[in-house]
């Protein structure tokens, strides 16, 4: 028997493209705007969300039959906040450098709509294994968009990728700067992230017409 059934594979792969949490469900936009000026930050955020959403979905799924419906949102918030604090404390103790890189993202993870959205829409109604796959899939779909946006913003805004100067030196005027290219400072500001996300949505919908909603 294969480890993943066809349905299970769908749970992981669908959110990467045709049911992407950012471009299709339009969730998690705030953090995508805030931290994508650098590719490294995008990657760190993607991994953090992968961990919190994968584990959080399992916890909520295990508790799904005993959570009182009246306070389910509070329970979900407590679970995600507790997970984030645990991750943060453990990193501070055993991977201090990484925890410093993460510091600004911790708050953003708690407020990320994708996490609450998946708890509410999937984990409350499905078993732990399926919920785990759904969490991993959605976090990967979110991370994919973050990395794409981070790539373009850092490349066009600072001329670097992961901190390495790939287009030449803008001050000493080497590489592409020698022929008059200038970094686009506007790319570093949040509105450009929204525009890049918009462009991804445009490309995605023009390639797959089924995604276009009819009125």
């Amino acid at each position: 028997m294969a480890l993943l059934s066809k349905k299970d594979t769908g749970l992981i792969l669908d959110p990467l493209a045709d049911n992407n949490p950012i471009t299709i469900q339009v969730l998690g936009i705030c953090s995508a705007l805030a931290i994508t000026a650098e590719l490294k930050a995008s990657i760190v955020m993607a991994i953090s969300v992968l961990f919190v959403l994968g584990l959080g979905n399992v916890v909520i799924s295990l508790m799904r039959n005993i959570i009182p419906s009246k306070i389910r949102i509070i329970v979900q918030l407590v679970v995600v906040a507790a997970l984030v604090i645990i991750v943060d404390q453990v990193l501070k103790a055993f991977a201090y450098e990484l925890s410093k890189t993460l510091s600004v993202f911790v708050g953003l993870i708690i407020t990320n709509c994708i996490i609450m959205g998946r708890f509410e829409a999937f984990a409350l109604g499905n078993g732990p294994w399926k919920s785990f796959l759904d969490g991993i899939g959605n976090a990967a779909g979110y991370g994919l968009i973050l990395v794409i946006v981070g790539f373009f913003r850092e490349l066009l805004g600072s001329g670097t990728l992961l901190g390495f100067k790939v287009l030449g030196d803008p001050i000493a005027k080497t590489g592409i700067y020698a022929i008059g290219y200038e970094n686009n400072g506007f790319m570093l500001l949040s509105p450009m992230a929204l525009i890049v996300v918009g462009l991804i949505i445009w490309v995605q919908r023009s390639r797959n017409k089924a995604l276009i909603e009819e009125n």
Partner: protein
Amino acid sequence: MAINTDKNIYTVAFASIMVIVVGSVLAFLASSLSEKIKQNEKLEKQQNILYAMGINENEDEGSVNFVPTDRVAEEFSKYIKEQIVIEGDKITEDNEAYLINLKQQETAAKKGNTRKLPLFIGEKDGKKFYIIPMYGKGLWDAIWGFVSLDENLVVQGVYFDHKGETPGLGANIKQRYFMDDFEGESILDGTEYAGIEVAKGNNDPLNNTKDDNEVDALAGATITGNGVSAMIKESVNLYKSYLETIRAKN
């Protein structure tokens, strides 16, 4: 038997148990890890102080590499010859001056108490470094750092850090290209304590001019840059009387 999760009594009981369980887990975790976290913070401060006086493992042009944690305590005691605490006119030696919390001291000063000002005196290749800790406000949250000066109050190195400045913009204050620019700038303008301005549009991106009390600003991070300028000026001003005695001796 299925549980009726809609009953009020169940909801209250569930909420109470959840609070107790989550609270206990977090409290246990925090108390069992706190020693390790404190130790990491201590080593980080030592690394930062050494970085400001030029003891680091920087190799290529762009990276910021500290002395590794397993060696830092040893290097710290080797290079930092004296740690003093200035409290009004009183100057005392304190081997753990680097642990003084600057924010707490600021709050104490606001209540009318005398501020404890830590200062580190380092020595490398026969040259003395006076390292001043700094604390200020960026755009979103606290920024802090260390500036190391020679006896003429010329900057020998700096280290900046932040709690939550925007990645790619204000967070770049801890990038090499920004911190390196401060080297060689004087804190003094004539005889006046001018600090160092993070200046927009000073037409000196390579920072070749070292006598203008200015370094080139970061694009898109004006408020963080202003915070850095204010932090340097205010922090150094607190040490003015001590720095005057160093200059007088020189």
